[in-house]
């Protein structure tokens, strides 16, 4: 096959490309230029382009750079800023996968005559009744199926995750055997356009107004202040610097317009359902019990799906056991066993 591999400059995509070359495919590498601003690591900095170029040279494959910075700004950064301004907690990696890697880049791969697009994600593609689904990686600790949930058939027919069946240790071992300079490169962890030194606040403050606010308890008594209500996440416990000791207190309500954060005991967070928007199903909507994951490294919990409106992209997750609420803006992904059936974005938990 003629395969376009997205080479980020990290070890996973380097090995993904190596495996495809070893299998005898015609492989061309591309690094996406997504973000021109400050960045610690991730997919965007110049040093990562150099690492990708060197890895491609070591593998003897062509390397190109595609500039998707404008789309990234429009489809990832701007919604990220708008979500925060509205008090939501967005997941930009999901949006990048949705709009950049498996929409714009996949379309580009088609345009340029490639049979498939490969990335270094830790996930697998599994066929169920002839339909190809994203599924959890062999290395469950590194599993990225959650952030890949917008990828559904027929796009899955043309996507490959060559390292999804390997553990991270195996990936590094393979990279070492090949002498790839990315073999010992640390994993990227955080949002590529947020720097460790500046954090979300330094990124958002030039782009949107951040407002200080009051922290009150459930009876309305003031217990502290926050610098930016827009950066407070529903369910958050740490980082509020509340006065006094006492019981653990969590953010149970955020009123951005009223500049007010309410904290309370954990039982105040318990919910039995969450409404979703922007839902995309890969195949039929499950009528029986499924497992549902609400954060990148969380565990999936049993639930059923109701109130489905496919055209409007709406659905409701009803938890088998009540559990803490899902912060609005977070991705909610529906699995059967290891297989992604669909997903959407959390709105209200009740």
């Amino acid at each position, binding site marked *: 096959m003629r395969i376009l591999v997205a080479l980020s400059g990290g070890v996973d995509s380097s090995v993904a490309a190596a495996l495809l070359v070893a299998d005898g495919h015609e492989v061309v590498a591309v690094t996406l*230029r997504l973000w021109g601003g400050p960045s610690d690591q991730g997919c965007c900095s*110049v040093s990562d*382009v150099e690492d990708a*170029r060197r890895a491609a040279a070591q593998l003897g494959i062509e390397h*190109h*750079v*595609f*500039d998707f*910075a404008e789309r990234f700004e429009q489809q990832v950064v701007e919604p990220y800023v708008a979500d925060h301004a509205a008090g939501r907690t967005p997941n930009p990696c999901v949006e990048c996968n949705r709009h950049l890697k*498996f*929409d714009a880049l*996949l*379309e*580009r791969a*088609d*345009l*340029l*005559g490639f*049979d498939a697009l490969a990335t270094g994600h830790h996930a697998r593609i599994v066929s169920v009744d002839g339909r190809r689904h994203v599924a959890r990686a062999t290395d469950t600790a590194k599993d990225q199926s959650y952030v890949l949930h917008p990828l559904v*058939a*027929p*796009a*899955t*027919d*043309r*996507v490959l995750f060559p390292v999804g069946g390997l553990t991270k240790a195996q990936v590094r071992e393979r990279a070492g055997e090949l002498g790839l300079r990315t073999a010992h490169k640390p994993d990227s962890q955080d949002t590529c356009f947020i720097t460790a030194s500046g954090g979300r606040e330094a990124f958002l403050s030039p782009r949107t107004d951040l407002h200080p606010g009051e922290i009150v308890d459930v009876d309305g008594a003031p217990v502290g202040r926050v610098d930016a209500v827009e950066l407070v996440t529903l369910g958050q416990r740490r980082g509020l610097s509340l006065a006094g000791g006492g019981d653990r207190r969590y953010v149970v309500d955020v009123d951005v317009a009223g500049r007010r954060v309410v904290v309370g005991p954990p039982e105040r967070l318990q919910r039995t359902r969450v409404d979703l928007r922007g839902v995309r199903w890969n195949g039929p909507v499950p009528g029986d019990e499924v497992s549902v994951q609400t954060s990148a490294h969380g565990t999936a919990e049993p639930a059923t799906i109701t109130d489905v409106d496919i055209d409007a992209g709406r659905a409701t997750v009803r938890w088998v056991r009540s559990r803490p609420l899902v912060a609005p803006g977070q991705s909610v992904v529906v699995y059967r066993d290891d297989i992604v059936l669909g997903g959407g974005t959390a709105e209200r938990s009740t």
Partner: protein
Amino acid sequence: MEPFLTDRYGNPSGAHATARDAVRALDEAREQVAEHLGCAPGEVVFTSGGTEADVHAVSGGLPPRSGVPICPSTEHHAVLATVDVLGGTVLSVDRAGRIDLDDLRTRLAWLRTAATEETGPGPSVVSVMLANNELGTINDLDAVADVLADVAPGVPLHTDAVQAAPWLDVRERAAAADMVSISAHKFGGPRGSGVLVVRDRVDIAPLLHGGGQERGRRSGTVDVAGAVGLAAALAVTVADRRATAERVAGLRNDLLSRITAAPFAVRSTLGATGWPPPSGDDPDEVLPNFAHVLVADVDPEPLMFLLDAAGVRASSASSCSSGALRPSHVLSAIAAAGAGVEGAALRLTLGPETTADDVDHAVAALQAVIGRLRQHRSNPVVPGVAPDGSVPAVPTAGGTAVASGAGHS
């Protein structure tokens, strides 16, 4: 130049026999360059390339020349960025990217007035490229010099002749310039070797201070092999220049007329029906090897990718350090002057060795690639679905069909 990388290894700053051998080679190279550029040998400063020469000329060295440097908005980044760092003034251009002489006159006069009133520094230097590295359009330096003599006598004129050197008679065209930059890689010489001509009348401090080589204007052990290679390549280029330019202009005009004809719907950026080769008295002349076109309804990145795969090494706008395509400041500048620049910009340049077969191949490749991209746009493939088999295949045979002037000037 090869002996000077191996057996003839002398440092020309030394005094022994090996050093004298290197000095002699360097002196000969300097004389050759001086003859072809129309200056005295002592006015030739060997540099690490066009960028160093530009930065040195525009800044005036370290410390920088006092005053405000001036250049038009279509200059190479080596000039533009230096002007910017020094708080200089950027002039507007016409629709072909050439300096606006009225704007030059106005700004110079204003800066002169400001200086005499001690409210600000006067102009320090005017830098105007001989030929533009994206469009191939040519500035009339005699006319620029006339404005300077009239409004700001004594202010030096620098020209970046990097793109022009292989194709134009720099000796004649840049006679009015006080400083001239060229780079060897543009005419078959080694990369990393350039020259700044500094006429004796010009005050300039060294940019690189140290041992005082190059008559105190550029310290550092001189790259003898680079200088010898530059001089040899320049000599060959100059000897063949007239005949080569005429032949290449014919091929370029053929290429341009074929790709701007239906069904391509590709148009010449400069709008001319037939671009004349340089003659010296034609106001609309363009370098003989340049064809700059705009391709409607396609994205530049996939266009470049598929042309490259088909053996056509074109360029779109300027390339940046990470390899991705960036918007062109030259196209932005001519758009500000009213030129239409919609579509994917494509700079096709020919080399001295380009043949009629290469042009045929380029025309066929362009036809196939543009056809494919347009078809995709009007009937996009849904991600995940195999492309329609009727999409025309891109020819992959052949090597370099149209040799690019190789990116940067």
